[in-house]
């Protein structure tokens, strides 16, 4: 039995689905279709790995939902569950979900199913009078990326009506790349990023102060100012128009990613954006990054991850010369799943590491559209073991410590690889 997906939706469900695709298209040019028992997840990550989006449609969202994964029995009794590895180009799927209002009105049913033997996703729209529209999209086999962000440990949590976000967004021009969110226990301010407006003497600086009573939920643990990319904010606003649910914002100190979530029982959307790290608040070494994937073979991963970490860590620390991507894409496909993940953190590193980061980031400038993110290095997510709290209290006990000795790294790695759940980390 091959890994497969089959689901059926009504017209109004298609509208929500289409809005999710549109929202994710603002982040990336590629989309993963990732079915599991939790439902169908649409995932994407941007080219500079500084923004991640995931919309999870629960099985009860659909009129019909069926999925399966391929289970491979192996000799040492460790089964591999191979899920559907389906990556679609946004250019292929976005035009199908155009004119959502007319789709909602005119279609009776929409069926999406995969044919793994032919690496195709088939999307069919059934109209009245027996008219049927079929799209066949070839997909690439690629492990979906998953970012796990623990919202519960965030110091600051807000819940706002989408209307508020929409009002804030009109303040800024589309040429504005970064915005800064500043909060105190009493109020909230969204403003143009200082860094940007200082460079261009022609740019208008705008800010909007909103009182805490306009929020559905307002819990601020500490005064914080974080800066992130503006474009992605518009993406989540697109999706919120479809669900009418409030938007929750979870964040911490500068450098740690920000999460925007919408949860309306049937659909859960999470957009995780990297934030600019403060000059002063950098840890001495990069915290471990984990964009996880979903295979559960512990030994295999341990070995590979260990190897990767060693290699990468050394690169990380020692290289000062030629620019090169610090985090080649290939390594991602070898990385295993992470079940629990602690506090994600994004670092724009300094010292030795910063030179490397700068270099690696400069490479990403070649990628179109990522120019605004040149100050953001890749997103780091703490891959913490079950001793989550411990990690949190000792943020400098980086699991991916700079080390000259391979042994050291392996030792560190191995410590974490215990328990039945595979818990891994790697530097990407």
């Amino acid at each position: 039995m091959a890994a497969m997906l089959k689901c059926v939706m009504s017209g109004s469900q298609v509208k929500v689905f289409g809005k999710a695709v549109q929202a994710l298209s603002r982040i990336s040019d590629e989309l993963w279709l990732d079915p599991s028992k939790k439902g169908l997840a649409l995932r994407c990550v941007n080219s500079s790995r500084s923004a991640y989006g995931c919309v999870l449609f629960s099985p009860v969202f659909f009129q019909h939902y069926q999925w399966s994964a391929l289970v491979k029995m192996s000799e040492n009794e460790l089964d591999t569950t191979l899920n559907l590895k389906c990556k679609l180009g946004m250019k292929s799927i976005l035009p199908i979900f155009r004119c959502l209002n007319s789709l909602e009105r005119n279609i009776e049913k929409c069926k999406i199913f995969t044919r793994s033997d032919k690496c195709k996703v088939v999307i069919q729209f059934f109209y009245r009078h027996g008219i049927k529209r079929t799209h066949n999209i070839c997909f690439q086999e690629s492990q979906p990326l998953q970012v796990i962000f623990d919202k519960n440990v965030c110091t600051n949590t807000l819940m706002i009506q989408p209307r508020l976000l929409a009002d804030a967004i009109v303040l800024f021009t589309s040429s504005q790349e970064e915005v800064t969110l500043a909060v105190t226990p009493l109020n909230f301010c969204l403003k143009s990023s200082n860094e940007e407006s200082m460079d261009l003497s022609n740019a208008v600086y705008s800010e909007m102060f909103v009182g805490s009573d306009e929020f559905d939920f307002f819990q601020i643990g500490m005064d914080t100012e974080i800066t992130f990319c503006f474009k992605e904010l518009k993406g989540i606003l697109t999706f919120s128009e479809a669900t009418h649910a409030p938007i929750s914002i979870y964040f911490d100190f500068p450098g740690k990613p920000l999460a925007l979530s919408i949860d309306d029982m049937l659909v859960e959307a999470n957009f995780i954006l990297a934030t600019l790290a403060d000059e002063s608040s950098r840890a001495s070494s990069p915290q471990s990054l984990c964009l996880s994937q979903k295979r559960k073979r512990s030994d295999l991963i341990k070995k590979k991850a260990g190897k990767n970490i060693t290699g990468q860590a050394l690169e990380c620390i020692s290289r000062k010369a030629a620019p090169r991507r610090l985090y080649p894409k290939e390594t991602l496909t070898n990385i295993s799943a992470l079940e629990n993940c602690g506090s994600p953190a994004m670092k724009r590193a300094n010292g030795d590491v910063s030179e490397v980061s700068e270099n690696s980031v400069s490479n990403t400038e070649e990628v179109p559209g990522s120019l605004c993110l040149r100050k953001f290095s890749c997103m780091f997510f703490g891959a913490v073991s079950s001793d989550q709290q411990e990690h949190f209290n000792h943020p400098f006990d980086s699991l991916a410590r700079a080390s000259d000795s391979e042994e050291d790294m392996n030792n560190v790695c191995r410590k974490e690889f215990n328990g039945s759940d595979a818990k891994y980390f790697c530097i990407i």
Partner: protein
Amino acid sequence: MRFRAKIVDGACLNHFTRISNMIAKLAKTCTLRISPDKLNFILCDKLANGGVSMWCELEQENFFNEYQMEGVSAENNEIYLELTSENLSRALKTAQNARALKIKLTNKHFPCLTVSVELLSMSSSSRIVTHDIPIKVIPRKLWKDLQEPVVPDPDVSIYLPVLKTMKSVVEKMKNISNHLVIEANLDGELNLKIETELVCVTTHFKDLGNPPLASESTHQDRNMEHMAEVHIDIRKLLQFLAGQQVNPTKALCSLEYWSLNQ
């Protein structure tokens, strides 16, 4: 140099916003002149290049509840600022349901016109939106180029038809030719004409009315039906018509050889 002003009336704010939008459509950069009684938006494009020159005057007491200014010096009690017109119109756009709008001259890292808006919101606290628009202060030596243009006595002055109608006519004509001929006479007749090798199209407007003549003597012997004509670049006229956001009570077109004013 100091400037502080406040608008609290919704209608005044709306009107001011629309004027600002009109300016933004006509020119990328404009000059704002602040004097004790008036506010002027000035655009000075060299006429030799077929540019549009504009002078817009607002009586400050018609718009602002509070208005205080201190010019460059006691003898020259005026302030001339240059800014990107779109920045101002966009800042004002966010002020549509405002309780109050304040504009003031500030210096935050560089000279700015700060537009600060207090918005009505559903909860008890209001939202405060601030925009710092960067400006350049125009030195006194350049002030002479920015004075009110002298409108010479026209040959013919006529009230224009509804600008929307005129705009749609001119827009269609733009597709045929770049060159438009406007003819008008003292009998309330206006023609918009385009001529190409293949086709000649004329739109006639009648019974438009003429304002009273400035100097009766010069024109007494004029034939009322004699048409004065000017040739202009159609795109410039369209730019002007497209920018019209404020519905004028009367739009006046004065033709004189070599000039066209409103």
